[in-house]
């Protein structure tokens, strides 16, 4: 065939391409779609519930109350000298954001098979939209936390918000990245291994208990702290709590490890995701 391929093809569709064929510029082109998905999720969520946004407030409130009763009153786990209610709420609010990002992105392929089977757009749009719409719920819960923080502060509780607060936006981005990374990693694997979806439910539970949410990191013996540092959520939760409440056992190197782990998980997730997205329609 006389090949005069000097014409400028805008796109070439071939079988599997390399491992690192990730088209970020295309994702940017679809930014409107990301925002519309966020809007859709949000509107649809409200229209289907009676209490609407109130749910976002009730959930962390009840969890915190339950944690306070069980872990502080009954089990008598110390809270670094902080008011237990604030201690648990700070952990719960942050953890909830991460966990919902992860669980809701983890079934991307399966829940969206209908749309994905009919039209092409960069598949990453969907999990990114999920992470952003969860940010709205986080903002509401965070507002609740701030309200309690102010109340405790004004009534003279022993809490010291400090300069680490500047790190909070970064922590938020990191949680989003980690939740997204884990979520798409799992969603890529569930197209092949359906049983992972079942494991996820209690996996999240176990992970929560492996993270200093119902206990402070200072309770962990020093020789085991390195193990906890490998869990990227440890440093995030501890730093988050330290920034607002001014007590905890966070060290900078832990934050560094956590950061590196997050980047690694996100990178592996994106690579695997973009590999699966091309052919998953045939296997699902």
């Amino acid at each position, binding site marked *: 065939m006389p090949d005069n391929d000097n014409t400028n093809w805008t796109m070439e569709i071939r079988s599997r391409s390399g491992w690192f064929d990730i088209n970020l510029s295309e994702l940017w082109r679809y930014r409107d779609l990301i925002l519309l998905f966020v809007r859709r999720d949000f509107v649809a969520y409200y229209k289907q519930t009676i209490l609407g946004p109130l749910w976002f407030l009730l959930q962390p409130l009840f969890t915190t109350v339950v944690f306070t009763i069980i872990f502080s009153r009954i089990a008598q786990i110390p809270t670094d000298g902080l008011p237990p209610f604030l201690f648990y709420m700070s952990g719960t609010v942050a953890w909830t954001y991460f966990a919902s990002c992860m669980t809701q992105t983890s079934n991307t392929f399966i829940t969206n098979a209908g749309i994905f089977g009919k039209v092409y757009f960069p598949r990453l749009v969907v999990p990114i939209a999920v992470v952003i719409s969860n940010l709205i719920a986080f903002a509401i819960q965070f507002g609740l936390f701030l309200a309690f923080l102010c109340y405790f502060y004004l009534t003279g509780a022993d809490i010291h918000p400090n300069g680490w607060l500047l790190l909070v936006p970064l922590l938020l981005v990191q949680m989003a990245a980690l939740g997204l990374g884990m979520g798409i990693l799992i969603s890529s694997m569930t197209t092949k291994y359906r049983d992972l979806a079942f494991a996820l439910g209690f996996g999240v539970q176990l992970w929560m208990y492996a993270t200093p949410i119902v206990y402070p990191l200072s309770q962990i013996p020093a020789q085991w702290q390195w193990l906890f540092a490998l869990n990227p959520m440890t440093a995030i939760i501890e730093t988050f709590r330290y920034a607002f409440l001014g007590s905890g056992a966070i060290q900078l190197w832990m934050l560094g490890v956590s950061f590196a782990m997050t980047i690694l998980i996100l990178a592996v997730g994106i690579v695997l995701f973009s590999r699966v997205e*091309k052919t998953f329609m045939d296997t699902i």
Partner: protein
Amino acid sequence: MSDVVIRVENLCKEYRLGTISHGTLYRDIQSGWAKLRGTEDPNARIGAVNREQLNNTNDRFCALKDVSFDVRQGEIVGIIGRNGAGKSTLLKIISRVTAPTSGTIKIKGRVASLLEVGTGFHPELTGRENIFLNGAILGMHKGEIEQKFDEIVAFSEIDKFIDTPVKRYSSGMYVRLAFAVAAHLDPEILVVDEVLAVGDAQFQKKCMGKMGDVAKEGRTVVFVSHQMGSIAQLCKSAILLKEGRIIRKGLASDIIIQYINDMVGNSQGFKVALSGNKDIAIMKAEAINEDGNPVSLFTHTQPITIAITCRINKWIRGAEIRIFVRDSRRNVFTTDTEIVIDTNCKPEMVVAKAVIPGNFLRPEIYFLTLVTYIPNQLTIDLIQDALSIKIIDGGSKYAASEGVDYGCVFVDCAWTIEPASTNK
């Protein structure tokens, strides 16, 4: 050659039938562990030496084999073929829903594909919100949609309900809105599956007109349809697919004739290879002449018996079998019957027979689409163009002037001519 906008080269798509991998993590780990220790894979088929050999068994299915063609700028190309010829697979690959097994497609320009109308519509959102969402899914920017918003609303004819959630729309309104968004896409290349088969007749006409306009503006359209009428109307060139290969490409009118002749030539009836697992599965269909033989050629005086074998896996109250009879342009008539529930309700094979009387259908080629369904509820099984029959003139008075359109059926209208009564 600079005006080629789609170049398909040696495209193959292979599906593996049955399970793709072992399906569970446990067994994959088990296999991996066995491989590591050098023992036999507990999950391998007995006798298979390695994966290659496993793959060479006939559990593979090629939906497309070595397909190559070019589409030029501004062309409307129709893709024709029977069920399972690979049309939909081809469209899916062009629209990037799935990747090919080998081969490449090079595309110049923005592609928008319409494999379905209303993809991503959310019932809770209003018409306005859905226009934006659906538009964005199809690849439009927000600005573009805003610019065309009024046009889209006008085209869909639902301006009064634009701020109502679409879950309150009638199905007609829903489809009109969905198509309106799609019709206002501005891609250089438009890929369309049989979405025109929806909506009322007037709206269909409007859609066809819109597709024609798209091409007049110099854009390219790739169009798949079972309706030869729409292909003939819209497309100048066509590609005929059969069992995953291109049989012929060329002028649409020539290809349509070949397709129709092909279908009649090798159609001794329809038979599914797979075991029907639908509740009421159509397994076999034949056109039988007066002598009881399955044939596809009849004279216009012969009655035609259509025998449909169904496997009834579940007896459903109110289920019906329907036959759509159509010629190359439109449906000529439909006929249906209710499946009366058997008392023992056990799975069973049944044969339904319908007789099309002689001296009824005009000489033409007809395609029979078979459906089992529950009226106004759901389609249980659908076989597009399951049968084709050719009716030749067995000596009617119109035979001499063949090719003139005298209508679709012979009707004995009981003419009388009497002297007009004078006292009126």
